[in-house]
Each structure stands twice: as structure tokens, then as C-alpha cells.
């Protein structure tokens, strides 16, 4: 990613406007994709391949598998974009929900079971979500913002978010790993997301 992104807002306030589509523009591109417009689909892909691939790789920790899954994600977008409903959320959210779910499904499938042990190692204190992904990516303002907000969570909140969202564990598994009661984990995860939401200034 070579641009500074400010995806929280709908086009307004983005420096230079530039080629980063606003939420509305992206929704329109998805709508065009639904009628078989490959050019629109390519723009959707260009906008979202970075975060899709990035988040999938974050969960799977494997470059080649992550490309496979990213490919599945975008083909699912292609097949099902008629179901996207802008009234219910942004196109970015819609695509990234698919991406995360696919990644988690993959990591939970049997073939990936052996990786789970290794994944537990990702719980080093102080690790930030972007660790280990520098090679293709320039530092962006967005990344810094997210890091800063993650640092503001309590340790348990951060661990809860990290083990579930970034690693693909269920809440139950995460509670076991952290040796806390499930209800505690649920509460911390929720608190963590609320804090992140507020820190990042997200409004749905």
C-alpha cells in the first residue's frame, strides 16, 4: 500500500481524494460487479486485495495458502455480490467479513490443525499485528493508528482480540489458552472491540 488511507470516512476528508474509492463508490463498483462488469470487479480487487490478503495471511501465516484463500474470497465476491446490501454495512466490511471467515475456516480445518500449536506462539507480549509483514508494505498512517489503539487496550483485552481475530481461535479456545473463564474472555473481547472502535473513531 503506497497511499495513506483514511477509510473511516466516506470520501470526505481524504487527502487528495485520489483513487481510493469512497464507501459509496465502492458499493457502486460492487453493484456493477454483480452484473458481470469485470472492470468494476478489478477496481474492487485493487482496492481490497491488500487488506484481504493481509488479514488472511495474518491468520494463516503462510504466503501461498493465503493467496489461495484470497482467490477464493474474491471469487466468492464475484459470485455473490448481488447479495451485497449497502443498507447493512460497507462493501469493505462485507468483503473483509468473507475474507476473515474463509481464513478462519481454513485454519480450523484439519489440514491446518498442526499449525495451531505454532499459532499459539503468536502470543508474544508486545507483538503488534503488523509484525512480520513489512516486506511488501510501506508504513502507513492507518497502521500506526491501529497500533496505537491496540496499545491502549488492557493486556487481556489485547490478547482476546489477538487470539480470536488475528489468530482464528474461538472464544472458548482463547479462554483456555489464557487460563481465564470463558465469561471473562467474552467480556474482555467485547470491551476491547469497543475501545478500539472508539479509539479509531468508527461509526457504522
Amino acid at each position, binding site marked *: 500500500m503506497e497511499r495513506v488511507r483514511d477509510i473511516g470516512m466516506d470520501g470526505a476528508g481524504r487527502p487528495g481524494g485520489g483513487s481510493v474509492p469512497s464507501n459509496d463508490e465502492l458499493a457502486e463498483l460492487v453493484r456493477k460487479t454483480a452484473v458481470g462488469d469485470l472492470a468494476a470487479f478489478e477496481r474492487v480487487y485493487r482496492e481490497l486485495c491488500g487488506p484481504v490478503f493481509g488479514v488472511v495471511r*495474518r491468520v494463516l501465516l503462510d504466503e501461498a495458502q493465503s493467496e489461495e484463500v484470497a482467490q477464493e474470497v474474491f471469487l466468492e465476491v464475484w459470485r455473490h455480490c*448481488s447479495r451485497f*446490501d449497502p443498507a447493512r454495512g460497507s462493501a469493505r466490511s462485507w468483503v*473483509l467479513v468473507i475474507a476473515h471467515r474463509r481464513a478462519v475456516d481454513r485454519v480450523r480445518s484439519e489440514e491446518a490443525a498442526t499449525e495451531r500449536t505454532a499459532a499459539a506462539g503468536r502470543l508474544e507480549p508486545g507483538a503488534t*499485528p503488523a509484525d512480520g*509483514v513489512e516486506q511488501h508494505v510501506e508504513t502507513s498512517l492507518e497502521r500506526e493508528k491501529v497500533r496505537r489503539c491496540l496499545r491502549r487496550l488492557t493486556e487481556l483485552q489485547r490478547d482476546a482480540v489477538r487470539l480470536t481475530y*488475528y489468530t482464528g481461535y474461538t472464544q472458548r479456545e482463547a479462554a483456555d489458552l489464557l487460563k481465564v473463564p470463558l465469561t471473562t474472555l467474552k467480556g474482555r473481547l467485547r470491551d476491547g472491540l469497543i475501545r478500539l472502535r472508539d479509539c479509531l473513531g468508527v461509526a457504522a
Partner: protein
Amino acid sequence: MSDVDIHGLIAGYAVDGLDPQERAAVERHLPECDDCRRDLAEFRETLVRLAYAEAAQPSEELWTRISAQARRTRQAPLPPLPKADGERAAGHGRPADGDEGGNHGGDGSAAEVVRGPARWWRRQLPWLVAAACALVAVSLGVTLLSVGRTMEESQRHHAEVEALLAAPDTHMHEGPLGDDARATAFTSYEMDALMLVVEGLPDAPQGMAYQMWYVDEDGMRSAGMLSLSSDGRYAGMAHDMGSPVQVGVSLEPEGGMPEPSERPMKFDL
């Protein structure tokens, strides 16, 4: 599980961290819980930010593979068209294959249909317009492509369809056509155009095709041919509509006839 418990699961749902039973409970609960849907939407937008912070460039070949595969991959059928009586089924009759691909899983009650004399479907359900538009555009597009026309041409059709659906006076009509088929028509006097989608017509025999007719006081005049889409619907768009009272459909030799050679099935506008 109480509603309070379920509300506490929304964060877990957003990060895909629930057991299957919990997930199912959340998806059942979402349609009736405004707060839950709002929380979920906000959590998901938050996770969008986290994902962007992870962004990494995949290899350039990835797009090559995806686009090649997309060209060979049929897009899923669209949600059914709305019923003329304002039934809400269309919005929630999405294929029952779970949340995968469906927007925000289970929370299907966001759109409220307010009955109104005209164009309720457009005011209340913007996505429905997109769906209706896509349905017809796909029908036309697929057919055009299959006979070797260009993408540009099919895009021009999309544009026409979109213009018709966006016209201020567009009306939707729906009803039976003949014994087994159901027709949905969009008409605009302003655009002087009509778009017809028919479901349930038997396949036209070899060398034959369905032709549309405008039926008005002066009799019947051709409104062009219907094209078969890959999902088995017939669709067509016609200009020079005038003020027909009905639209007819008859089976004619391919290429069409100046007058119907059989009594067309008719559909009131």
C-alpha cells in the same frame, strides 16, 4: 440462552470466534435486535480498520488467476424480484446457504417496506433496484455475450436498464403470463421504455423465439424479442412504448414477425 447472553456474543460473532451453536443463536437473534445489528456493524467497521492495517500486496499473478476464473464462473442468481403487493419476501428470500456471502448474516430485517402507491420498491429498498437491474442486465448481457457481441454492448444495455429503473415515473407490474409463467415488467412513460422479465416459460423450440408485443387500442406491434438468460429467465427491453394497456408474448420464428402468428399470452400493465 437469554437475549442478554446473546447480546454479549456479538463481539465474538464479529471476530468469527463462536461455536456453531452460539453462531446460530446470534443469527436467529439479530433480526429482532436493533442494538445488536448496530454493534455488529460498528465492530465490523472497526475490524475493517484492523484489516487495512495488515494490508500486504499479493503477487500480481493473483489477479490474473482470479480474473481468468471469474470469466468462467457464473454469478449467483439474484434475489427474487419483489411481489407487486409489497410482500417483503424478496429481501429475505436470499438463498438459504447461511451467511456466507450474504451481507451481515442473519440480520435480514433491516429494510422496512412501507406500502405506497408507486415505486415503494425503489424508495424503500435501494438494493432491490440493483437486484432487479442486475437480473435483467445479466439476462441481456449473458445472451449478448453468448452470441459473440462485445462487452461494451452489454454494458450499454446495463446503462439502458439502469436508466429505466432510475426514471422518476418507473412502475413495476407483476403477474401471471399464460398458464405457467410469471412476468415482471418495468415501464416508464418518460423513458418511453419497457423491460420485461419472464420466469417459467418453456424453452423455445429450435429456430423459434419469444417475441414481445405492445397491445394498445390500435392493436399489436412488435416490442422486440426476449432473450434467454443462463438461469432460464427470458428478458427483453423495448423502446417506443407509447401507452400500451397490455404486453403480449408469443412464440415466433427466430428473428421475429411483423404481426403475431399465434394469439399472444397477455399481461396487463
